[in-house]
């Protein structure tokens, strides 16, 4: 099956900017996959998502989303995607139902009617269904401003799903939500993904959210610095080592030289080692050690390390 998102050598330089916001980034997303785009603030995440969702033109490179080119056929792409923005994009002056109706009319799902009462039965049934999923059967005709942040987010996701998008873009969707709402949102999104096989494209800087992804692309300063499954990324960057030190350093070093082990220049000394080799190494060392620590980083350590590496280059 061809990938549902294909980004090839995408470069973006804003007008009047001296440097590129994105430099020749490439990645692919398979249909039905959960893809996470990670990066620090200002790394180019929003620029990337803007181009993929057709609100910004690329400077060069090719982007195909749901079989259409974002530059040549933006409106065909728009029909196939749903987007949850960083800031809630509900109209606070309208009721929940009016927000949903507006969306349905924009996507041409129903003909225009001036009020809810005049809308087709199929539409009303859809609204009922949405309201019961959210448990807001009574509040669906209330103004949005009376809703909590978590509820608004959920409504937005439901709204973005009514035109059955093949790809759902989420731009830092949980920013500003408390831990509870965040967890509820994710369990709901996972449900959606299983039921509708919607591809999910997420930008975030919460690592625990990315950890569930099938694939992660880390960008920094507009360049891809790491790309693969969470396991691959960890394996790629996770340097496992043990840290040792002794009161009598010269003696320890002499011993390490004799054992033919590489170590870092300054103490405490880092020794690259796989977990199963640790025991053997320690057994071989006779100098009394003052520090023995094994180091096996988390994805977060890995992420920070990748970013650090990229800023040194």
């Amino acid at each position, binding site marked *: 099956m061809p990938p549902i998102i294909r980004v090839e050598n995408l470069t973006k330089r804003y007008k009047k900017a001296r440097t590129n916001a994105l430099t020749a980034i490439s990645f692919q997303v398979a249909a039905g996959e959960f893809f996470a785009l990670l990066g620090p603030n200002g790394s180019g995440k929003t620029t990337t998502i803007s181009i993929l969702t*057709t*609100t910004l033109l690329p400077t060069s490179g090719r982007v195909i989303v749901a079989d259409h080119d974002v530059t040549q056929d933006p409106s065909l792409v728009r029909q196939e*995607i749903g987007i949850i923005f960083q800031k809630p994009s*509900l*109209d606070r002056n*309208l009721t929940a139902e009016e927000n949903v109706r507006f969306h349905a009319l924009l996507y041409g799902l129903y003909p225009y009617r001036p009020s809810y009462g005049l809308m087709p039965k199929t539409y009303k049934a859809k609204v009922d269904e949405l309201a019961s999923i959210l448990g807001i059967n009574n509040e669906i005709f209330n103004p949005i401003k009376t809703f909590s942040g978590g509820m608004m987010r959920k409504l937005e996701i439901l709204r973005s799903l009514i035109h059955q998008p093949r790809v759902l873009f989420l731009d830092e969707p949980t920013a500003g939500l408390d831990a509870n709402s965040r967890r509820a949102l994710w369990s709901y999104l996972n449900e959606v993904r299983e039921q509708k096989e919607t591809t999910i494209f997420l930008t975030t800087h919460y690592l625990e959210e990315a950890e569930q992804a099938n694939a992660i692309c880390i960008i920094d300063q507009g360049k891809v610095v790491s790309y693969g499954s969470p396991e691959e990324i960890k394996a790629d960057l996770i340097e496992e080592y043990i840290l040792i030190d002794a009161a009598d350093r010269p003696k320890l070093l002499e011993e390490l030289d004799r054992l033919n082990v590489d170590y870092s220049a300054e103490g405490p000394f880092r020794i690259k080692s796989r977990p199963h080799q640790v025991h053997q190494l320690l057994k071989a060392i006779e100098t009394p050690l003052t520090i023995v620590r094994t180091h096996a980083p988390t994805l977060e350590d890995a992420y920070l390390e990748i970013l650090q590496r990229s800023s040194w280059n």
Partner: protein
Amino acid sequence: MELSAILAIAQRDFTKLLRDVPRFIGSLLSPFILIGVLGGTIQSIQGDGIEYDYITFVFTGVLAQTLFSSAAAGVISLIEDRENDFSQELFVSPVSRYSIVLGKILGETLVALPQGVATIIFGFIIGVPISAAQLVALLPVMLVAALLGSAFGLVIMSNLSSARTVNTVIGFIIFPQFFLAGVFAPIGALPPALELASRLAPMRYVVDLARGIFYSGLPDSSAVVVDTPLTNIIVIGVLFILFLTAGTWLFVRSERNR
């Protein structure tokens, strides 16, 4: 589909106005202030030296001006919208950009109309002599004023890069037109430089059209009306088409090409 979207966009603007009570009341009050306070003050300075009824003169001017500038400001607000919450949803929808523009123009025209009605009611209250025939004739003029205003707003909006400049620009581009269009003082005999500036102010043509229609057949007509309604309508038609095509083209181009 596009028609449904246009109507939905227009309806949203109007619904928003109705829900925002302070804004709604404020918008209804602004003609009262312009006619009652500003008009009244200027009249007292001028004294009885003028041969036509000054309040009626200001009333007709403010009627056209209110519709024009309210619609223009409404469309310009689309750029403010673009940077916050809701219109992101609009811009990523498959609706054509032309439909977004048309929906917005239609919507802001609808939003401006209640102000026109409020102006007329205030006119009745302060005793401006309005006949039934004049009233009926003014209705299409109000629509024309609002439509030209929103098309004008579109051109301005397309040339702005950020919402921060909006308020400055509204003050800079709309306010001078109050005087260049002759809302508060006749523009029949202006010095050449001001005459040119006045001819360039689009609001002038709707104000003059409103007066041409209102004063039609009345003795004061020659003192307050500059051009014939036909001339004004032709100029308005040309400007409207020009603003609409140029504005939409610029808007569509600038939106993605950042």
